[in-house]
């Protein structure tokens, strides 16, 4: 680490900070009302008044990107939270105790991972219906096995180490060994899994909304904006570019951050 600066971490943190502050500022106010239709001003090019131009309904794209990114972020964060918490619990218990319960959960995870996750999420959505909260539930369940697998691996690695034996010798309870002794040692790996999972969740949310199953109109989401902008790719390229670049920045920020954290821990 000495002498070599962690550019991934710095750049990732910078991009993420900019995106987050934009999204947070959007909670308070946006340049224009994101859902206000202005038919006389549709598909106008970027200008001083509309920094990223307007869409086919004359709505301000910058405002919609800010609100849409917030919506995408919310879905991704909630999805990762469900996947990571449940995955940590399942992975921790199965990795630490092993035995037939371990086999059962891991094979169930294999089954879920064997299907394309978007397909499985589509099946779930067709059962519980579209909408933002249902997308979170469906994607959250899809994300559990990959987290469980990563966490399980860490627990399998740690459970036979001498410091865990040592904890048993002093009579430490299993729950305390799992969460106080082992969990902090698994933290770097879990953080990296969260960074990767978060990117996948942003993409998955965008795909689901692109297919019209996520956030419902007229509310904005980056995926939905991409899908709507398709028809105007040549007449109004700023529409697709704005939404696309916002997705790229969100993902790039978090993946650089994840890699930066990884590099720091390995040093």
């Amino acid at each position, binding site marked *: 680490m000495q002498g070599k600066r962690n550019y991934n971490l710095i750049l990732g943190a910078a991009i993420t900070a900019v995106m987050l502050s934009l999204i947070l500022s959007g909670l308070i106010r946006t340049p224009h009302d994101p859902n206000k239709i202005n038919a006389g001003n549709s598909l106008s090019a970027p200008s001083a008044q509309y920094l990223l131009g307007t869409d086919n309904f004359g709505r301000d794209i910058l405002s919609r990107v800010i609100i849409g990114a917030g919506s995408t972020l919310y879905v991704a964060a909630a999805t990762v939270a469900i996947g990571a918490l449940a995955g940590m619990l399942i992975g921790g218990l199965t990795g630490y105790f092993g035995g037939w319960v371990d086999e059962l959960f891991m094979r169930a995870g294999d089954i879920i991972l064997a299907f394309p996750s978007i397909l499985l999420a589509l099946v779930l959505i067709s059962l519980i219906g579209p909408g933002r909260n249902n997308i979170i539930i469906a994607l959250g369940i899809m994300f559990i096995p990959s987290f469980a697998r990563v966490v399980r691996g860490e627990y399998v690695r740690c459970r036979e180490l*001498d410091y865990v034996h040592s904890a048993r*010798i002093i009579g*430490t309870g299993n729950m305390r060994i799992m969460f106080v002794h082992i969990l*902090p040692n698994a933290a770097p790996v879990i953080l990296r899994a969260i960074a990767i999972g978060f990117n996948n969740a942003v993409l998955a949310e965008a795909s689901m909304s692109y297919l019209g199953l996520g956030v419902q109109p007229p509310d904005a989401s980056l995926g939905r904006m991409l899908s709507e902008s398709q028809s105007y790719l040549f007449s109004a390229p700023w529409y697709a570019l704005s939404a696309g670049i916002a997705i790229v920045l969100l993902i790039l920020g978090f993946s650089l951050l994840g890699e930066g954290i990884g590099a720091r821990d390995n040093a």
Partner: protein
Amino acid sequence: MAESVLEVKNLCAWYRGTGVFGNKTRTQALDDVSFSIAHGEVVGLVGESGCGKSTLAKVITGVIVDTGGEVAYDGGRPQMIFQDSYSSLNPVKTVGWIIEEPLRVEGVIAPAERRRLVLEILDRVGLGNEYAARKPRELSGGQRQRVSIAASLIRRPRLIIADEPVSSLDVTIQSQILDLLLELKHEFMLSYLFISHDINVVYQICDRVLVMKDGRIVEEGEVESIFNDPQHEYTKRLLNEP
């Protein structure tokens, strides 16, 4: 007070595994082991690697439970010092946290008093107060082993099982740690079960020696008599190794 600090009778232990064809295997690691350790005694346990020495330590401290036979000890549960101080100290915790943990788990002593005891024992094993805030990776091998000793002593056990405690250290550090163990033995009225493959170390600090081969104790006696007049072929071979 009982005469011995540890009584082991007809102890057997098995390792479960899976064979090449998925069949369940059960390997006997300890076979009818019996011995006792008196108060204040240092007993050496020697033998080649894989003969069951570490398994015996884990059975006595309760890490392995698939066993037959009896283990009885006087006073609290025996504590253990491991060979590899790198893996026996939790890498994300501070030295102070690690030494305090046995008391925290016990849950009898108030937090302020616990921290005082931690600093006291740190000082006793030759580490200053400033070490309490450090992480294990910031310490040298000898210092880490001192931390292990402090953590094993904090509950004032009567017996400590030391599994190759000095074999990963330099010779000069080795003798410092051995001296420390002997000082502490008198101060805390301890007994040791000292596991080692290093005959010289055993000769230096042990009163009595157990020789182990393939999970059995094949010879047992006072240090002098074992070294001067070994009876078993295996013991003779161990002594003649460079």
